[in-house]
């Protein structure tokens, strides 16, 4: 893998994480449990899509094939996406979305803190912007985790079930990818292993204040770094990409 190939895939993956997460969160639009949460979750979706736009634009420039961020978002097939598996999982109930947001936002909090100091100026610039937004996402998710975990028996049970179900998708967060091996020594990419322990500490602290029993570690899902996904991504893409597939290059 050349440095250019690594940088392309690395930025593509950062973009894909935002894009797929944003697309999923946007499904809550008009379906939030309360009006304020409807607003909140769609705002989270917007931040994610904004980040995706910035990273995919850069990925297109790095690839050098005159592809725009829209080309990359709407004209790639499932196997060419590298988003973390957790981002593509269906939204589930509100507790499931909250648990997902806690796990992902905490991960992104450490990731973008590191990437804010990337030696690649563009990655550093986008990350300095992203970290401010992610911090807010994390605060929002943490608050809800605490409320649901200490709410009713029903809300607590749902939250516990969500964390238990999602846990096997967290192993991917800290896999050392081929592109990380190429880019981390020059500090272009973050070394994810470096903040795995800090992430665990933060998550355990959130479990404690949420009265949640930490899920037991077991089999960890894997595959997205090679474009291998769950059955959910294809369905998501068929909806997200429908217009550009049916009417290529349509504009408004």
């Amino acid at each position: 893998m050349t440095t250019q190939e690594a940088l392309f895939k690395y930025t593509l993956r950062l973009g894909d994480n935002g894009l797929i997460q944003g697309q999923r969160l946007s499904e809550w639009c008009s379906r939030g449990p309360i009006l304020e949460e409807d607003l909140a979750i769609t705002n989270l979706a917007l931040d994610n899509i904004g980040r995706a736009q910035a990273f995919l634009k850069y990925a297109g420039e790095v690839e050098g094939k005159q592809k725009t961020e829209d080309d990359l978002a709407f004209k790639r097939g499932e196997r060419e996406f590298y988003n973390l598996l957790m981002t593509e999982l269906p939204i589930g109930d509100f507790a499931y979305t909250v648990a997902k947001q806690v796990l992902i936002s905490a991960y992104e909090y450490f990731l973008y803190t590191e990437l804010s100091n990337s030696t690649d100026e563009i990655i550093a610039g986008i990350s300095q912007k992203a970290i401010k937004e992610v911090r807010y996402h994390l605060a929002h998710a943490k608050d809800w985790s605490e409320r649901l975990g200490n709410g009713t028996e029903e809300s607590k049970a749902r939250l516990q079930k969500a964390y238990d179900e999602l846990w096997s998708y967290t192993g991917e967060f800290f896999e050392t990818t081929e592109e990380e091996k190429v880019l981390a020594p020059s500090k272009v990419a973050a070394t994810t292993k470096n903040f795995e322990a800090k992430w665990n500490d933060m998550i355990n602290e959130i479990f404690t204040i949420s009265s949640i029993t930490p899920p037991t570690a077991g089999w960890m899902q894997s595959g997205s770094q090679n474009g291998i996904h769950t059955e959910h991504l294809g369905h998501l893409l068929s909806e997200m990409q429908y217009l550009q597939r049916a009417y290529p290059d349509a504009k408004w």
Partner: protein
Amino acid sequence: MVKDLQSKEAIFQLLSQIVDPEIPVVTIEEMGMLRDVVITENACEVIITPTYTACPAMGIIEDDIQSVLRENGVENVTVTLVYSPAWTTDLMTEATKEKLKNYGIAAPMHSACSTWMTAAEHVTCPRCNSQHTQLISKFGSTACKALYACQDCLEPFDYFKCH
């Protein structure tokens, strides 16, 4: 390009009249979004920075920049979006914050007040100046705002989040 507009200052002056489409009482310069103007022999590059990565107003601002300069005879304009150094609410002057307040939006406190653990506390009501206010929703009508309510005058209001 028209001769008398060739100076960077003149172009900056024109652009500093453009208002934020979401908060039309403040200009993009006052918001700290207008970063620089670079003039070359036959082109003009305007450098702007977004408040939030997905701020939907950026497209409108870009169109406004293009049309203001076109109307004034400046051609070959490109608008470049930069992320670094990241925009912060600390770029707003006290005068700008006062304008926001008069418009009904509580102005952001210093960005250092916003840590990942807490939302801003003791936001002052822009209508009655009471400090007796409550966070209703961390997210409001636009990406940059949160929703509060005053417990004295009972009015809900927007708070411009520290960023």
